């Protein structure tokens, strides 16, 4: 990468201001086009038949009667999605999840799909598809799946990461261990040890917009896909791999996105829609219902975590260890490993050990959910930290400050930290008025810290100066949280022009080079770097054009405040040329003016946050209400502070729902009991107080403006902050998320019964 990404301390004019977002009016007036808002002439409607069993062998599928239903144009099963994965296990897992092959692995697993002229015909046809199942024993609970006699989700999975390699299959797909020092020696030096087991239930990202797409396969092998996604370039690659399409012939356009939070980083229905279109020879629209989203997209893991932490009476942690079991659904990934890596990342520990165990269960494929795996690990560890602080009679913030990681600390997952923000967020929390505000009756206060890695990735951007001097910025990272506004500010800053003169758009896959998806808090971090690079390239062009106009050497032209200036005494009398003036003459100075950039944005820098929560609990009903909530997080540099605050608030809101209410509930039959927002309750505005935020700006040394990703870390501390607040309010340690009214009442009853 030739671009110099090193941080430069500079005075900024546009970056750090709060203009209105360019997509705001469209969104509040209903003009914005989401996944389901695209239509094509002759378009068919698709519906998917899903397994009613948690685990079943598919003996046969008969589609004859369904094909005879009037209006049906195509029906597909796994046979229409042949295995083209060439032994790639990861791609095969995606294929199998999109359409069950030999076995249905969970309640809701797709087994067939219909495209018909309307919804009525499609639904009718689903009823005539005859699937013969051999129902198999199932397991949906993470701990039950580890029992010796548990039904095997897959009989060809042998635990990796253990020596010697096991000879018997198991639901434990992988074991990953991290740490350093000697934990037993450390526990021997402890005055007090806290040891406790914790559970968290499975939750969904709860994005308001369901998965939706329109697919159109043409007879010449070309295809188009309009889709709601966090990464249309990744979807293009996945769909091309699964359907045997040429990447260049599949054009994917991303719609506006009504939330993703990690759940729209994987393909689910899109390959099915493409396969239906290919078979029917017509465009196909596929929109998942909310029930389908719950049953058959990718929620996060349910977990079971054991934590043990020892400390001296004066507040020094001597040893810490955790065993973290994460349910993966039927396809192993690295969720437990991420939990094991992040669990103690906030602390400077001499002796630490974490073990992550990846557990297969008959539930939907687990996927990323905003700082994936970190919130559950933080819940367990930060709860134990809080309990330990109480036991040694030390203030919970002081205890954390005393043990916080800092520059030079060897992290619990291995590397040594550079400059990091955990200490500053803790000190800000200690000084925040929230920490000293009085509490009312039945109220408790909790706080917690959180960590997330953040990352960058492959990024490509085009910046075009239009004939009137306005600028179009074409980026390939989907705007999930206001990045078009942030990137416009960045371009305005570099070019020295007004924010209003820049229009940022999300380009489709045919018009821009490859971009990784918007995940890992990388959207603004990565694309701002590419935008800076593209803008500087455009400035180079404009300096050349000014030099031509003035007939002077380009070395004598410098760029300042949106104008080309002639440098030196010999050019003193020349009036600077603005972007508009240069653009107007572009046709006669060499043609269109543009700046392009393709780069790898690495060095994102890790991220930390500290949250404070006050909660009020009704001891008679167990209901609880968050009465005050504060988020303190390092942003490196807040490009558009309002949207940074929005990310902080959004993460906290999702975390509050996760902590207090949200929960996948499975019956004995292995079927999901609450696949809808009436029974799976996410917080709404009236449930939440104003979430206060404090942005810290500790520059990232690996970004020209010091930017860090901010999208994910804010969901890491809330589970623990709320658990600590409730525990402090009711005097009983709450160790099972969600801390719903029945669980609070049960804990109070148990405590009263002694």
């Amino acid at each position, binding site marked *: *990468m030739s671009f110099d990404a090193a941080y430069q301390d500079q005075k900024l004019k546009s970056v750090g201001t709060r203009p209105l977002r360019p997509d705001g009016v469209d969104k509040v007036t209903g003009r914005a086009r989401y996944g389901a808002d695209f239509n094509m002439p002759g378009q068919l409607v698709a519906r998917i038949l899903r397994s009613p069993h948690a685990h079943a062998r598919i003996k046969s599928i008969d589609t004859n009667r369904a094909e005879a239903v009037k209006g049906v144009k195509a029906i597909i099963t796994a046979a229409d999605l042949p295995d083209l994965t060439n032994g790639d296990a990861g791609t095969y897992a995606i294929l199998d999840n999109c359409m069950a092959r030999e076995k249905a692995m969970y309640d809701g697993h797709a087994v067939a799909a219909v495209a018909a002229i309307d919804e009525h015909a499609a639904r009718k046809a689903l009823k005539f598809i005859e699937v013969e199942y051999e129902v198999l024993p199932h397991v949906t609970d993470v701990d039950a799946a580890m029992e010796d006699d548990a039904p095997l989700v897959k009989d060809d999975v042998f635990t990796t990461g253990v020596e010697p390699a096991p000879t018997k299959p198991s639901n434990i797909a992988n074991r990953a261990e991290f740490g350093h020092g000697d934990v037993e020696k450390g526990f021997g030096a402890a005055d007090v040890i806290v040891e406790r087991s914790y559970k968290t239930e499975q939750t969904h990202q709860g994005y308001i917009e369901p998965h939706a797409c329109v697919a159109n396969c043409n007879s010449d092998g070309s295809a188009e896909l309009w889709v709601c996604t966090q990464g249309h370039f990744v979807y293009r690659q996945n769909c091309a791999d699964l359907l045997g399409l040429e990447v260049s012939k599949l054009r994917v356009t991303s719609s506006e996105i009504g939330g993703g939070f990690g759940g729209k980083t994987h393909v689910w229905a899109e390959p099915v829609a493409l396969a239906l279109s290919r078979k029917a020879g017509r465009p196909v629209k596929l929109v998942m219902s909310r029930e389908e989203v719950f049953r058959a997209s990718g929620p996060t893991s349910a977990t079971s975590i054991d934590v043990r932490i020892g400390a001296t009476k004066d507040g020094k942690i001597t040893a810490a260890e955790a065993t973290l079991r994460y349910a993966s659904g039927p396809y192993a990934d690295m969720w437990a490993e991420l939990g094991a890596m992040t669990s103690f990342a906030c602390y400077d520990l001499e002796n630490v050990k974490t073990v992550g165990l990846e557990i297969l269960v008959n539930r939907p494929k687990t996927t990323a959910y905003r700082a994936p795996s970190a919130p559950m690990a933080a819940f367990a560890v930060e709860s134990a930290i809080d309990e330990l602080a109480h036991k040694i009679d030390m203030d919970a913030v002081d205890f954390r400050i005393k043990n916080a990681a800092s520059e030079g600390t060897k992290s619990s997952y291995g590397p040594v*930290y*550079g400059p990091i923000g955990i200490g500053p967020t803790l000190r800000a929390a200690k000084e925040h008025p929230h920490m000293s505000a009085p509490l009312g009756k039945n109220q408790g206060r909790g706080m917690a810290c959180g960590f997330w890695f*953040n*990352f960058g990735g492959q990024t490509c951007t085009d910046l075009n100066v239009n004939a009137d001097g306005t600028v179009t910025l074409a980026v390939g990272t989907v705007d999930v949280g206001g990045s078009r506004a942030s990137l416009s500010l960045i371009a305005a800053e570099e070019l020295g022009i007004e924010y209003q003169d820049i229009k940022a758009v999300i380009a489709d896959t045919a018009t821009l080079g490859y971009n990784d998806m918007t995940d890992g808090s*990388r959207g603004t971090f990565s694309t701002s770097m590419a935008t800076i690079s593209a803008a500087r390239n455009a400035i180079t062009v404009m300096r050349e054009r000014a030099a031509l106009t003035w007939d002077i050497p380009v070395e004598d032209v410098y760029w300042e405040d949106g104008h080309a200036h002639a440098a030196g005494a010999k050019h003193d009398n020349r009036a600077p040329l603005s972007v508009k003036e240069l653009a107007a003459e572009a046709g006669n100075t060499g043609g269109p003016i543009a700046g392009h950039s393709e780069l790898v944005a690495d060095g994102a820098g890790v991220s930390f946050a500290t949250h404070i929560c006050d909660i009020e609990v009704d001891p008679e009903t167990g209901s609880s209400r968050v009465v005050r909530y504060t988020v303190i997080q390092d942003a490196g540099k807040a490009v558009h502070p309002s949207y940074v605050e929005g990310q902080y608030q959004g993460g906290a809101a999702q975390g509050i729902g996760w902590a207090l209410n949200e929960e996948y509930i499975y019956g004995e039959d292995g079927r999901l009991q609450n696949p809808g927002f009436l029974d799976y309750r996410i917080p709404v505005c009236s449930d939440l107080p104003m979430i206060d935020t404090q942005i810290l700006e500790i520059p990232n040394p690996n970004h020209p403006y010091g930017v860090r990703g901010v999208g994910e870390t804010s969901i890491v501390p809330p589970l623990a902050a709320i658990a600590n607040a409730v525990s402090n309010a009711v005097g009983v340690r709450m160790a099972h998320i969600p801390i719903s009214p029945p669980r609070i009442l049960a804990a109070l009853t148990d405590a009263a019964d002694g």
Partner: protein
Amino acid sequence: MVDVTLWAGLRPFADNQEVVRVDARTIREMLRKLEERYPGLHEPFRGQVAVAVNGVIYRNDWSQELPEGAEVMLMRRLAGG
């Protein structure tokens, strides 16, 4: 010359070593030399590896230079939301 720490899942492919010394100036050269020495690492390295150099995690920038004596750790490529 740098000492490269392997994650546990890689060690069986590298004679069960936790740390391997490699003479390399960039991440690319380090990964190539590791693969040459331990061919079993070829598969895990394909799109699944990240490299922490003095605490900064690199997922793509294999041109990153490795300072003499740098702390270098191989990690699985992270997922994000």
